[in-house]
């Protein structure tokens, strides 16, 4: 079947089977490979995208479910001039990524969190990231980056 959606502000469409997962549709059909798949049980969060302004795990929905929807992926998170967005820049400034594989999901989750809660505490961030696994950073600099992106002073957080 033909599936159409608005992805990062652009109309896009492609063929999908009924069983085609949204993550596979983005990666294989629309060639948007910034969204990653790190597990098959909806646990790791590498595949988090926004559908109709809600953070969802794209490995856990069918492409057909997003037909006609507004979708945002990591490829749409930079500023219009191509510079890094606030959250992306905070991740770079605070070394919130190492191998980069979970990063798309972390940024998309962080963006959803900050829309809900513009100034989250450390524990609120840790709690919110329960569905995003990172194996490299030990989370320290991810939490720090999200606090910094929300405008909080992170100078006093130990190295």
């Amino acid at each position, binding site marked *: 079947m033909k599936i159409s959606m608005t992805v990062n502000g652009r109309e896009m469409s492609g063929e999908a089977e009924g069983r085609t997962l949204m993550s596979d549709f983005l990666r294989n059909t629309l060639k948007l490979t910034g969204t990653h798949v790190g597990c098959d049980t909806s*646990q790791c969060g590498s595949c988090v995208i926004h559908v109709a302004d809600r953070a969802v795990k794209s490995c856990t929905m069918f492409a057909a479910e997003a037909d006609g929807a507004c979708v945002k992926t990591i490829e749409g998170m930079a500023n219009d001039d191509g510079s890094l967005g606030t959250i992306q820049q905070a991740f770079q400034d605070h070394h919130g990524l190492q191998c980069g594989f979970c990063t798309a999901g972390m940024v998309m989750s962080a963006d959803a969190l900050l829309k809900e809660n513009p100034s989250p505490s450390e524990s609120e961030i840790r709690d919110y990231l*329960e569905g*995003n696994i990172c194996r490299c950073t030990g989370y320290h600099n991810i939490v720090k980056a999200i606090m910094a992106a929300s405008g909080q002073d992170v100078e006093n957080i130990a190295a």
Partner: protein
Amino acid sequence: MPADGGIGAATIRREDVRFLTGTGKYTDDINIHGQAHVHFLRSEIAHGKIKGLDKASAEQMPGVLKIFTSDDFAEVGGLPCGWQVTDRHGEAMQEPAHPILASGKVRHVGEPIAAVVAESREQAQDAAEAISVDIEELPAVVDMPGALEDSAPKVHDDLTSNLCYDWGFVEENREAVDEAIRNAAHVTTLELRNNRLVANPMEPRVAVGDYTSASGDSTLYTTSQNPHVIRLLMGAFVLGIPEHKLRVVAPDVGGGFGAKIFHYAEEAFCTFAAKNLGRAVKWTSTRSEAFMSDAHGRDHVTKIDLALDAENNFTAIRTETHANMGAYLSTFAPSVPTWLHGTLMAGNYKTPLVYVNVKAVFTNTVPVDAYRGAGRPEATFQLERVIDKAARELGADPIALRRQNFITEFPYATPVALEYDTGNYVATMDRLEDMADLAGFESRLAESRERGMLRGLGVNCYIEACGIAPSSLVGQLGARAGLYESATVRVNATGGLVVMTGSHSHGQGHETAFPQVVADMLGIDAGMVEVVHGDTANTPMGMGTYGSRSLAVGGSALVRATEKIISKAKRIAAHLMEASEADIELGGGQFSVAGTDKSVAWGDVCLAAYVPHNYPLEDLEPGLEETAFYDPSNFTYPAGAYACEVEVDPETGKVSIERFSAADDFGNVVNPMIVEGQVHGGLAQGIGQALLEDCVYDENGQLLTGSYMDYAMPRADDVPFYAVDHSCQTPCTHNPLGVKGCGEAGAIGSPPAVVNAVIDALQRAGHDVEHIDMPVSPSRVWHAMQG
């Protein structure tokens, strides 16, 4: 220091931009025109005889190109093992064949039996489900000491038993150690298990094989930490492809932690099938497949004795370990419980006598190999746990007992073959006591008690041997490889540089840190230096990244190559300025003649090298490109002291990490931001091992923890902000950067700190608990508290 950061600058990472914008290029992002997809039919049975396999109906399924079984690999070698261990009787280890696809028997759940190649991944999977395999199930062996009983089923019928090797180290010390323990004033004994772990880099493994019939060249794109090693092993030992006809590319790799060092069957399969079918063949692991096909880590069962004299000086250490190899020998598996473990049993302490016995055992489980730390966490855990137990038995302060036994003079030759070149364990412990505010523990304890919580403090030290390693030494120890590293520095005519390194970055930030080294040496902007890695077609032969070796070994090769560049550039500059080469100085991006105001810019020298109109052609070749191979003369010895404070909920047994402090000595540091990030990540993996992670098999060899639903990965709310410090620096004495390596420290040093803290909390609350095996789960703690 150059404007954008030389050695010592916390330069933000340039590679982050592509990862943060979704434009990285991981192996699964690579698709080759006309590629087919493979799905592996894997054994659901731990041990059994393959009596028949019917693939006829599956072959008729839509999109199926070919179904491969072991018969298709009759002319192909099996997966090689890269390290041979000689046992304590002088015998070579038992080394079973390791087929690409199961042949005759299946020996662990997840072992590939057949490979279905089809037009799409889904079609391959559908067809695999239509294959009928008749397997006669045999009793499985999972338990390690049990595997060595005469009545145990044999994993490999052609071996004499399930014993891979019985290793003694140092064998000549065996009787002296026994005697020292018999005569000791006090002996503390501890039996423990170092839990089996799954490395779990977030990117599952992927392999794409391609073949160009016009040239006869094969290419493998793979998620590897060491593409040259894969090229060598797969080309020479498995498929018989000469290295000049085989290219291995490891592009952006999403974490490794050891599990992506090894050469796997799926890599060989995709390369083989691409040539066989004339189509590129791609395999993308699911996480479920990863749990049963990536090499696992740890899985030791150990008894350790620590002997002390009447003044509490350590006099002898004796250990007896069973190490699980799994069903086959993974690439470097035999080295982990032996040379990467036994040699570290002296720790940070001057114990005159050490004897380590390791029995490596085959079982019907996934092969076990190096995982972050590899042998060193196992050594550190048992040593630092038994010291804590000894302190309690003797009524000694655990920190004072450690301090009393510290090695304080360097170089220090341990009784287990290593020579520590430098260190200062007193300084790191001093730093730890300060940064962890150990003096304030009592007040935090009181505050926890007011809330009804138990609180405990665990402190320990660690040392590791990194920067693996001198080739001549590891050759004597059984390595079937050299362990040098390489770098080519190419200066372009317009002054920019490309560094081609044999190291591989899969999160470590080489693309940022390596230019810092070059920029510092040349006095130019780091932005003028680009790093190329991960492709055997455009990098010199290198051994890759593991064992915290990239900067210590690969960085040293980079320094050597850059020194050659400087030397040649000075000769060109001397010619251009009509001065003596000995008078040429390099600084601030220009060459000058000492004692004069004559200078020539870096860029002008580079241009002259490639446009040699005014150039000493009779003495000097044009061009400016140099390669160096660096083989270290010793390991490096990072060391440190860690402190963990936990709270234990007496109602549930749940442990929470309240504070974690790490004082490390990594020698010199090139990029402190990256170093701290490495420690953070190591700490989370060590805390994960201590509290959460456990790879569990049932008695039939069924993997019970085969997904993130059952294998507890540390998440953001399981760990605190860490306090890390690397201000105690005793530079490595034998490499040009004075660096030691930082990648594994956190994972090595943290498990004993956590467990020591939990035991401390329980004992302070009056519970007579001496040890709890990892992971220290709520149920284990709760049961321990119930006595």
